[in-house]
């Protein structure tokens, strides 16, 4: 006797079990596994370009800072004993620096990195920097008459209750916060963050939210990244962009950073993908994309509206040294500041 005859009500249950078993099948063939914190809309075309050029499948695992996922970084840490990823392509050098400190990355000096300024890469070749975004001020065209020129202008009484920035514990805002502490010194940086709250400044969930709020006129001014600002510009939002502190501490540049994962299952493919990513062609493509990333390599053509990195007064930053500073701030001052900012918003 059949243990469980084919009762119609049970068929869905069987079908579900069958489908789950079917899912166990995996694809085979030449491939490279790339974890990336770069926004999917920008990373995917590059990955597809590589697939077309080489015939190698790129299995992209994207992440986003938009809703503060627990994220790929933790996945990489959890998988450290036997990684699945070959390459980590980060939207900023901080996350890769954290991985490097934990021994998750492997050194790789790519021949394709020639021409890229060494200031944007790890001296020990744990990661290599290329195309950059910048931290910029965005303001609503109709709500701000005189453009700001410095991030410190967020403390200006004319922006009382109208300025916003993303949670400084996450994403590029955290890197910006750490860089401000290094550039201004602890005392002045703390005074800036405290003054921001005293001036009625608001902490939002993400840089994308800063873009949306300023575009909607809900906030008059905010700090975000150039890719967010450019997307708003392309959508015809009434936003203006300022590269801040040209005459002072300089504008913070945030290079992409790519690293080879230690113990990568497809080591050679990973190296080839990194070589591809560091090529002038990819820098040019990222500049042409909606992300409007600035090539770090001199001489790469940039479209209108995208400044050359060399034309900016860049904030002098030791990117590798920012990670421990951020770690210290995340456990201390920034955590309590974020709590205070959240309470102020309640």
């Amino acid at each position, binding site marked *: 006797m059949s243990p469980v005859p084919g009762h119609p009500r049970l068929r869905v249950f069987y079908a579900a079990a069958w489908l789950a078993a079917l899912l166990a099948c995996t694809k085979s063939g030449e491939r490279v596994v790339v974890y990336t914190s770069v*926004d999917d809309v920008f990373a995917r075309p590059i990955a597809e370009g590589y697939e077309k050029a080489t015939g190698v499948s790129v299995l992209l695992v994207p992440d986003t800072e938009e809703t503060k996922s627990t994220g790929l970084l933790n*996945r990489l840490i959890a998988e450290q004993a036997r990684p699945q990823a070959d390459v980590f392509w980060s939207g900023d050098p901080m996350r890769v620096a954290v991985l490097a400190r934990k021994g998750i990355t492997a050194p790789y000096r790519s021949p394709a990195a020639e021409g890229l300024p060494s200031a944007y890469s790890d001296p020990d070749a744990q990661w290599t920097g290329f195309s950059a975004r910048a931290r910029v001020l965005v303001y609503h065209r109709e709500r701000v008459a005189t453009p700001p020129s410095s991030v410190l202008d967020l403390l200006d009484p004319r922006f009382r209750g109208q300025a916003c920035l993303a949670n400084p514990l996450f994403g590029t805002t955290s890197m910006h916060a750490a860089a401000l502490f290094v550039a201004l010194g602890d005392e002045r940086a703390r005074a800036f963050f405290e003054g921001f709250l005293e001036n009625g400044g*608001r902490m*939002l*969930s993400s840089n994308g939210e800063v873009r949306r709020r300023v575009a909607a006129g809900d906030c008059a001014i905010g700090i975000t990244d150039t890719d967010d600002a450019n997307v708003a510009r392309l959508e015809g939002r009434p936003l203006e962009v300022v590269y801040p502190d040209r005459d002072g501490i300089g504008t913070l540049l945030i290079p992409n950073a790519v690293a080879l994962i230690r113990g990568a299952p497809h080591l050679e493919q990973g190296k080839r993908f990194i070589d591809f990513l560091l090529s002038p062609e990819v820098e040019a493509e990222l500049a042409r994309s909606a992300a409007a990333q600035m090539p770090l390599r001199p001489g790469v053509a940039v479209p209108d509206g995208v400044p050359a990195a060399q034309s900016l007064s860049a904030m002098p930053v030791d990117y590798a040294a920012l990670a421990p500073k951020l770690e210290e701030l995340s456990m201390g001052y920034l955590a309590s500041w974020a709590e205070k900012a959240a309470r102020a918003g309640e």
Partner: protein
Amino acid sequence: MLSCLDLERPGRWRILLIGAVALLVSTPTLLLLRRGLEGELLGKLFWGNALESSLGLAAGVAGASFLVGWPLGSAAALYRCPARGFLLVLISLPLLMPSFLLALGWSAQSLATGFPPHGWLQGAGGCLVSFAASGLALVTLTALAAAGAIPENQREAARLFGGERALVRNTLRSSRAPAALAALLAGILTLSDPAPGEIFSQRTAAGAILESFAARNDLVLASRQSAALALAALALSLPLLLASARGHLRLTLAHTPRKASLRLVAPASAGTAIGFLCVSTLLMLPAVGLALPLWHAPSTSLAGAFEVAFARASDTAFDSLGYALGAGALAAGLALALAAAAGRSARLQGAVLALSVLLLAIPAAAPALGLAALAAAAPGWGDPVLRGPLMVVIALGLRFLPVAALLMLRAWSSTAPAWFEAAALHGISLRAFAGRVLLPALAPGLLLSVALVGLLSASDVVAVLLLHPPGRPSFALSIFTVMANAPETTVAALCLVYGVAAGALVAAIAGRARALNRT
């Protein structure tokens, strides 16, 4: 070997089975928690006022969901009203939407309608509304199911005794306990979800855990916080769990297979319809907020946006369905084992409820990271299972096991002890009895478990993000990763396609359930 009668008798196997399932489902979390518990057990938790604010939010969500969902679901079980089926589908939709989408939609909607930037609807209120949307759906559906189980003869008796008023009073009394339990679960679910708190800049315990995970990369602290949060949730639920253990919630699990017919009573039916309409309009506001950018978009940009959305949907449809159905099947199977072990013992049912509370209160990232670490520590030959889609299925199935467990406890209570006794008397083997009698009788509960867990799994992004095999994301995860810098019309189109697909799924399941009830 168990006999049919053993399923009705007390026995040590029951506790062993519940213990085994509890160990199985908590192993992934324990793998991560171990590191936290090894160190300073009572070390600093960095909560600030986060726990307090989370508990307040959970209480608010549970209270609001109960106060609105309980009467609404009970009324829907008694009275026929126009477009009842459609309104029920509409009210179920928030269950299928990832919480971050609901919060972003509500935020966009309140911005568009000009609520003040510091107004309560964009702060704690926004958080409450985003969470209460799914809580309300859960409580309404639970109250509907509980009140719907009151048989026709009891309804008539109540009417004869005290008219329509007595019927309503008695119905509300019988659906109160299940609705309260559902409200409790809805409140507990908010404890482990950081997204709305982050979007509305509210400090919550889940947000603090997220900070430990994502900003500090401190898994030890995060795991300690997760354990503390689960214990806090358990402590809060203790009164209800004790009530359950004393048998006060037996009614929750009572079940009558024959459904009563719905009546058209003019004022009550109109009131039910108006209640449903108001609630579903409120619940639809986030969806409208998400779709707003489509309103003013030029047709060329609309076409492009929908092209992207359909491409993403078709690329991810197979894996999304597989993850969802697989998780549903796994959860239903484990829930069946738990229900069989708990049987008709109020104490064991209480133990299953306690396990459910603990599982729901732990942030989804903790077991997912535990499974990822387990897979990394295992030898490579285990990869097809440990790093394949099945791992996502396992993580999701374990995450939503509590929902299936409650449904299966209720389904098990619908079986009659006489069936088991008769089978034993005639010497029928347990295997034959299960195949011929028990499983077909439990099939509606199993189907509902597969469906509900599947739908909840379809909207999960955390476990899928941390465990999916490279190149095989789900549709919800795809929206999550695309939405940061994609044009707003693309994000809106993705959300609309997701909402329509989810609605179609609910409608299909509701239709199937109706067909099953008829047979």
